[in-house]
Structure formats: C-alpha cells, structure tokens
C-alpha cells in the first residue's frame, strides 16, 4: 500500500473529501468508498463502457480513470438521474423511455447507457437515429441487441426535456 493521497470531488452534487490509495480507480472509489454502486464494472479495460459516468459533463470510463485523476472534478452517476431521490424519486424521462421501450434486460449495462445517453442528449437534444446509434456503439450490451436502447434514446429526444444542468458544457480538453 502506497501513501494515500488527498482527493476532493463532487459526486452528484455532494462534496467529498477523501484520502485514497493512488492506484484505486474512480469506479472503485464511487462504488466502495462513496456507496454509489449503481455504476457497474464489466471489463476494467475500457471496452464495455458499463462503468461510464460523467466527469465535468463528459462521459468517461470510470475504470480507466484513477480516482486521483478526478481530483477537483464534478462526477455524475446514475444515482443522479431520478428526480429528487435516487431510490424513490420519479424516474427521469430517459429512464422512463428505457422502461417503455424494453431497453434493458439484465440491467448491468443500463447505468452506463443512461449516462452515455444523458451526455448526448445534453449536447445534441435532437440527435437523429444514426447519431444515436454511433453514440450507443461506445458501450456493450449482451442482452438486448441494442435496437431497443437506440429506440429509447431516440424517443427521449422527442420528450423535449432537458437532461441536466445547462452549465455542464465544458470542453474535454483536460487530460
């Protein structure tokens, strides 16, 4: 175990100050230190995208980011989507659209697709089917065959809803 390093980040609007082993991934810190277990981990090599979260508004693979690299960032996870309360609040329009379109089966990939879709809908609220398919191709699903996921995101473009804070528009120039 190497020396823990200080880490400050906001997760779904809540500020956290932690000390973490530098080798811990953002995914593990979200899941195990912050109890945000909605973010699932499927491959740990950045291929499957099930661990996709938003960091400063951009979708990232939280398995391919050390928690240390998230210092000073704002992280959003699937738990931020439902209105008011993650466990009991009303599902947001994208979540509802997934349900109405049978866009999930085992549900393990679902948080990643929801966050990927959220990022897309914020930037391109009227994205067409081809664009949505390209976006959805970033992540893997082993159950649905994807068509229903594309349907769900496409249907959400027609709800006219905003999918999050307007001020999330930040260029992904940091690395």
């Amino acid at each position, binding site marked *: *175990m190497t020396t823990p390093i200080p880490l400050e980040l906001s997760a779904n609007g809540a500020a956290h100050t932690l000390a973490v*082993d530098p*080798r*811990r991934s953002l995914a593990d810190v979200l*899941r195990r230190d912050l109890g*945000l*277990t*909605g*973010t*699932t*981990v*499927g*491959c*740990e*090599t950045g*291929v*499957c995208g*099930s661990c996709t979260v938003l960091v400063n508004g951009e979708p990232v693979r939280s398995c391919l980011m050390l928690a240390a690299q998230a210092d000073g960032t704002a992280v959003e*996870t*699937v*738990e931020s*989507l*439902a209105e008011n309360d*993650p*466990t009991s609040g009303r*599902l947001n329009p994208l*979540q509802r659209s*997934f*349900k*109405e379109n*049978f866009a*999930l*089966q*085992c*549900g*393990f*990939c*679902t*948080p990643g697709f*929801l966050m990927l879709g959220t990022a897309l809908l914020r930037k391109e609220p009227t994205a067409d089917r081809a664009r949505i*398919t*390209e976006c*959805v*191709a970033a992540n*893997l*699903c*082993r*159950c*649905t*065959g*994807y*068509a*229903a*996921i*594309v349907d769900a995101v496409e249907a959400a473009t027609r709800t006219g809803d905003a999918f999050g804070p307007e001020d999330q528009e930040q260029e992904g120039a940091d690395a």
Partner: protein
Amino acid sequence: MNAIGVSVPRLEDDRLLRGQGRFHDEIVRPGQLWLRVVRSPVAHARIRGIDVEAAAALPGVVDVITAADLAGMPRIPVRQPSPGIDFTPYLQPALATGFVQYVGDPVAAVLAEDPYLAEDAADLVALDLEELPVSLDARAGATLRPESRPGESALVGTVDFSYGDVDEVFATAPHVVAADLKVGRHSGTPLEPRGLVAEWNARARRMTVWGATKVPYFNRRVTARMLGIAEHQIHMLESDAGGSFGIRGEFYPEDLLVPFLALRTGRPVKWTEDRTEHLIAANHAREQEHRIELAFDERYRLLGLRGEAWLDTGGYIRTHGAVVAALTSALMSGPYRMAACRSRVHIVTTNKTPVGTYRAPGRFQHNFVREHAMDLAADRLGVDPVELRRINLLDGGELPHRRPLHVFGAPMLLDGKDHLEHFDKSREIFGYDTWREEARRAREQGRLVGTGCAVILEKAGLGHDSAVVDVGVTGAIRVAMGGANVGQGVETVMAQIAAEEFDVRTESVTVVLSDTDILADGSGTFASRTTVVGGTAVKLAAEQVLAKARRVAAGLLGTDPDRLVVRDGGLEADGEPGRRVTLGEIAAASFAPPYVRTGEEPGLIGRGTYLADAMTYPYGAHYAQAEVDPGTGAVKLLRYAVSYEIGRAVNPALVHAQLVGGTVQGIGGALFEEFPYDERGMPLATTLGDYLWPRASDLPEIRTEIFEDSPAPGNPLGVRGAGEGGTAGVGAAVANAVRDALRLTGTVGALPLLPDRVMTLMKSQDDDGATT
C-alpha cells in the same frame, strides 16, 4: 384475467434504472474478505510445487490454500449423467490436483482484506510447473492418452443418436453431398462477470450464499456434499445477475472455494471475477468439427443423414456432462422428413478452457452444419435452396411426428403444427423473395451481396419445477419459484401468470426467485424452460390457493363454492357483485379454527410442482442478407429476420426482446467472436477488445415475428420457451448468405466468418475460377 398475452412493463426495471440493482457485488458483509484465485499460466503441466509463503506473509492476507487443503474432497459432479459414459476421471477438482489442464486452471486461493491486496498476494504465489505436451485439436487428439490422466483416453465418450438403416440408404442413394465444417470456440460472456458471497454464521450454524444463479438448488446440494454440512444449513438467496446465457451459475471451482473459505475462516468471503479470468475460466462453448453427408433421391427428397463430430470439451468435463453433444446429435435431422439418420459426437479433452452450455447449445452447431450442407446440396442438385427445404420439411399431415429416439430419457415427439406452413408464411411476411431479387440485382452491379435462410428445430422445457404462492392478510400475493433472474424478465412473467389467476395487476405481485428457505426445491433457469416448467408450477400453485380461497369464501359468504368467481383480487358470487370478500379477508379467516384442518397448511398457501414428461419442440426460420467488402473481407449484414413458433406468448414484448438479443449474440458467433489459442495453448482472447461482441454499429435492423399457431400440447399454458430460438439459426443463415454473396462452389468451411477468412475464401474462389 388479462395479464397473460400483454406486454406489460417489467417489474425488474425500476430498480435497475435507478442503479439500485442487487448484483452480487452489492452484497457487502461486515468483515468481508476478498478471494483471489491463482490460476495456471500454462496449458498442461505437472505441479511440482506451490510456494505460498511470500503471499501468506503479505500484510492484509488472511489465508492461502492449495489442493492440499482440500484433500479428500470429491470433484465437482455433473448435473446430468450420460448412459455409457463414465465422467469420473475427467471431473474438475476445486483446485488443480497433481496436474494443470488449461491456462486458467485454479491452483491456489488467496484471501485478503481488500481486492487490491488479494491480487498483490496472488502474484506472490510461486508455482513450480513441469510443462507437458499440449493437445489443442479434438479431432487430431482423440486417440491421445495424456500422462496427466494415467490410463485414460482423451476421448471421454461418444454420443450416438441414430435411427434407420443409414448405411443401406447411402449405399443406394442416387445423390450424396458431403461437407466438412467447423464451429469456433465461443462463450456467453455475460456483462457481469461471475461472483459469489458466502457467510458462515457460527451461532446459527448456517451458511448464507448470495449470487448463485441458473441452478441454485443443484449447487446447494453439491456444496453440502463437498463441505460435509447439511443442505438445510445452506441458505441460497437470489440476486440480480448481469446475464447468464447458460454460462453463469453452473457449479464452478469458485462456487466451492467461496463457501469453503467462509467456513474455514469464519468470516464472510466475496469473490468477484475479473474479465480476463472470466474469459479463461468460465465455460467456453461450441467448438466442434463436423463431417456431414446428406443422401437424396432423384426428386430431391432427403433419404438420410450421416454426421460425425468432434467436440472439444477442454481440460475437464464440467457440470453439463454430455448435454451439448446430446443436443447436437439428437436434433441433427432438424425439422425434415428423413427415414434414416446417424449422428455421432465424440467428446474429446484438450488443454483449453473447459466447455459448457451456451444459449442454443448444440443447435447453433447442428443447424449451421445441416442448413449449410442443404445449400451446398441445392447447388449440387441444381434445385433452389428454398425449394429444397420446402420439399423436405415436415408438414401438417405428418405432425406430430415421432422420431424413433429418446432424448434425456423422454421420447422425441416433434409436437409442432406444420413446419412447411411456418416457412412459407414467414418468407411471405418478411418478403424474402424480394431480398433475393435485391441481392441478384446488386450482384449484377458487381457487388458481393447474397441471401441465406435456415429452418431450425428448437427444444425447450424438460424436467420439473416447483412454486409456492401465498396470500397474506393484507392481500399481498407472493410467488416463490425456482428460477433465476438473468435478465430475461422472469419476475414479470411469473407475476403475470399469477396475476392472471387472481385477476390483479401484475405489478402488485411479489416474486421471489430461488430462495432455498422459502422454496425447498427448484430446478433453475436454463434450456428455455423457466416459463414452460416454472411458469406452469406457478399456475398450479395459484390454482391451489384459489381452491382453498373458494372454500373459505363460500363459508364466509354462505354460498356454494362453485358459484364464486375470481374478480379483482377477491371472490364474489357470480352476478352479485356486492357479495364479495377480498383475498386478504379470506386469508385472515383461513387462519381461524373453522377453516384450519389437520394435514393442511393454514392460510392461503399453495404449492405446485410441474413435471414436463417430454420436451416441446418449437421451430422457426432465419433469414439473412449480407454484403462482403471485396477489399477487406468484412461481412456487413444488410437485413436479418427471424420467425419463431412460441406456442403462446405470456409477454410478447419480452419474447421479441429474447429473439432480437439472441439473434445478435448469434451474429457475434457467426461474424466476430472466437477464442483462439497459440501453439502452446495460451489463450489469445483475454479481454473484450479481443473477444468481440457485436456493437450497435455492426447490426442491421433485426425483424422478428412470433407465431402462436401451435400451442404446446404438453403444458396447460401452451408455452414453448423463447430463450434460444433467436440464436439457434444465425450461424446457418449468415453462412448461407455469405456463400451466396461470394458464389462459392464449396462451403464457407468454418464459423466465425472473420474478415481474413472471408478474404481467403474469396481468393480460393478466384483460384477455382482460374482452373476451371
């Protein structure tokens, strides 16, 4: 009573959409330790020694074990025996004993306070291995006698399903067409890797296990025997599972190690498999090499089929035993009229990851082999491939049709209505003639476009399952059954079946899956059997509840039980809506003296067990239109369609979802997915960057049509099982479309049709063209 047949939204979705799923890794127990398995880095070796000292000395490490710590423990048994084959010498121990048989074979287990530390410690376990020659080809290696299994052959056994005088048929047949075909090594690879949590409560002397799926009751029995504790001391609890596809939930070495170490240390133990482990340690599937011959008469009628296959079972025989071989062999003749058939499958060990069942086991293979040979035959005989199938499909006049075979002990009765009618109807719906015409015109313009179809024979639903349905004093209905939630929507479907009986809303029913304290026995979720067998058990249990409710309500209302009708969660006198009691009121009354009887459980509780004494044989057809890029060999699917006879759809949207998802998995096996090995037996696909699932951008629109023309005669719901029909015919249809696109005179040779292989096919075709 309108819950069945309706595409109600899924009960599972709300929690999953919130990130509030109950996957095994969400189980966090106080004091929990993390298991890390140390795996063999070589494919075949004698174990000369294992030094765990450095690992055990690492701070944070609690325990390190090897096979020596499991001395005397039996090996992992098979779920289903296969008459005439003794699997004993080939069974896998929980930790490799004496020899390792594949890269990934567990050799030691490390327990630590943290997963990072556990992995650090596993790195420190030093293995002294003496490498032995490897065998990587089932057909070539079938006669080997590896020194790691003294006195035993690599050939585990041969499964043979034959009828009629095949050799006589072939000796006199006017036409014989033969093909050699291979199917690659694939796996279901669910998105959530495997995992398990076990906790031993020393005071209660009970073990709780979270994360078992597919066959929890079988796994509980095996765990009890291997650990030497009673079954009733083990409580298996349901969890969500991130996909199964036949792979997850079998009893693997880790399924013993986790509870064993919980018992040994007295602390909760968690194991979460990582992706690379999954790709080398969880069951692989499908790798088979086939020789098939078809005999025809002058009028293109199939006279017989001869098939021989070599199944690469990997380093050990795992729990499925010979199921894959049996399903390959028994259904080889497909939906065709055929007087004689011989189909043999040789099961051969190699030094690769052991194999098991993967969605449509055996059928992905036999449908590919038979249907591709049919297209080859059509060319050779000079008949249209659609017509050749039409001539030979069993029709309404011949069904039900008994094959003179027994599969898993049950007679093989094809119980459909009309295979020919299905094929004709689905081609019409999808406009397959138009697809063919489009492809022909594209070829005239120099494009490599082709079409292919395949008719498939499926099977579903054997064995028994049980359910308990109870209604409490609040009127709450709970269904407990022996299936597992692997994403297929089982909670929703079981709730629909119960809701139909009680005339309540589906979402008001609570479903508990495979909780061994609530339901004493269940069979699990596999083989497209959950709705057929488990669903019927739920129906029977609900009927029992209603029978009791009827008797109690009749007493409460002072009326004849036969006059009572179920309406909106209550019973009322027919035609007198005011004379009514709710299920909750009935339940409350049923605990009171007038309604309690010796020998009968008090309350509103029903227990149902349903035994399907034969399998049902659903059927369908697959269609593909594909284009090959002449510059890269890449195959692009332009169109795809599947039709499937479901008998009766409890939730049509979920049936479509199964078909589409299954088809896309099949496309993976046809075009992208493979586990290659190098000459030393090193696995080369160890990440999802190497083992390529289809992505959204790789797929055409998948059209699906469900037919409900032929309710299954064998069960009261008439359902046929939906899980595998989408997968079963994809290899066949895609191979036929590519063969058509390239105008091959021979076969495609092997699946998957990776671009470099397609390139080679194109070149060999050019060469053929040059020499003729």
